[in-house]
């Protein structure tokens, strides 16, 4: 197994780059990072819709969240794969397709995390802002969201770990990421699938173990600071 790793580490790390698109582990992490970063504003907007008292915001946001959470990710990958090119009238690369599917999917999940963060704040924070004469949106922007988003950082990092694992589904539409690279290695070696896919599993596992450690560190650092008294 070590031999497979020493022979193919570059392919597993960056795919065919610089002679082809960036792939491997770097593409996996990059795709997860970019998707979650772009899903974040969508998550905030959906969360605001979900807690809105206006039906025109509440119902669409709720419908999106329920729909996304009620369907497997691979449905969104298929939809993005077949309909995104029709929608924008151009062919779309696998990585963009995958990112599009992930952004919608993660946006819905992030929105529920953010919504719970907003609703976990004492109602007195909103009342205090409104009593000073701030509008609902001003209070959201200056008082509620800064606290809610800060408090949900650990949950959002956990969502990042899920996203890293979900990028492996990009394999079905030939996105050059870690699983795709491992499959390439497997196709070259032909006789060592057990070793190759154990190596793949270990790579995901170690990566996520490190990320989990980061989440724990962040949680420990956040503990006790900026808590609301009474």
């Amino acid at each position, binding site marked *: 197994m070590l031999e497979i790793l020493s022979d193919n580490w570059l392919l597993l790390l960056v795919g065919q780059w610089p002679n082809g698109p960036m792939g491997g582990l770097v593409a996996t992490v990059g795709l997860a990072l970019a998707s979650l970063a772009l899903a974040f504003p969508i998550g905030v907007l959906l969360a605001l819709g979900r807690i809105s008292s206006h039906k025109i915001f509440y119902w669409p946001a709720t419908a999106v969240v329920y729909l996304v959470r009620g369907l497997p990710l691979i449905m969104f990958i298929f939809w993005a794969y077949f309909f995104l090119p029709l929608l924008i009238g151009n062919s779309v690369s696998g990585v963009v397709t995958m990112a599009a599917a992930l952004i919608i999917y993660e946006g819905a999940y992030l929105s529920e995390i953010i919504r719970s963060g907003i609703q976990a704040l004492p109602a007195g924070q909103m*009342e205090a802002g409104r*009593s*000073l*004469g701030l509008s609902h949106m001003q209070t959201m922007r200056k008082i509620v969201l800064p606290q809610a988003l800060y408090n949900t950082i650990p949950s959002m990092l956990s969502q990042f770990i899920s996203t890293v694992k979900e990028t492996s589904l990009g394999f079905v539409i030939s996105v050059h990421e870690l699983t795709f690279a491992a499959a390439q290695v497997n196709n070259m070696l032909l006789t060592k699938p057990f070793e190759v896919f154990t190596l793949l599993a270990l790579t995901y596992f170690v990566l996520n173990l490190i990320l989990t450690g980061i989440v724990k560190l962040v949680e420990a650092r956040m503990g006790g600071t900026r808590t609301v008294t*009474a």
Partner: protein
Amino acid sequence: MIEFKNVSKWYGDYLALDDINATVRQGEVLVVCGPSGSGKSTLIRTINRLEPIQKGNILVDGADVYGGGSLDEMRSHIGFVFQSFNLFPHMNVRENLMMAPVLLKRMGKSQARDHAHALLERVGLGHKADAYPGELSGGQQQRVAIARALAMKPRIMLFDEPTSALDPEMVNEVLLVMKSLAAEGMTMVCVTHEMNFARDVADTVWFMDAGRIVEQAPPEQFFAQAQTERARKFLADIRH
């Protein structure tokens, strides 16, 4: 001036305010007391529309609180102090005081900063401008909360049980700030169980029971010869 005209409020089937008719004069210091569940917190929260009402009108300086005017504008002239302080924990004390005046363009930044420092000096916390709310005692937090409300230069101050969440030794520092405000002629409505404060500072005491204002009297009269059995029992209970 605050005028309640036939104000009724229900929580579902429960009648929380029952046809309130009363007036708070300009510069008056009013203490609202009564047993828990009598509607006093609900009453004070209707003045800046933190609670909807189902019947009647409330006029603040002639403007209908539940009418079509700008609610945010109206609220910015009414300071509200909460039982649980509700300081913004992600901002330091100075930022807590500066945020609303700057955001609502009442003051420039440097003017708001000077004003914030003057207010903090006034509540005895000039040295805490850089502290975060989580680093302050309850009494200090409540004094900051009063200063934050004053930062908008309100015409009226509402206090909803401002000392009820405090340890006994911190009650006085908050009451002293409230007394100094009263001495300056601020119009104040205070829901409180601090009967000594009522006796020393209030112009009028309202005693509430079951959603009604049962008695309205100057404090000396209310404490010496309450008119209703319910008020006499309340006074006897809180003295023990």
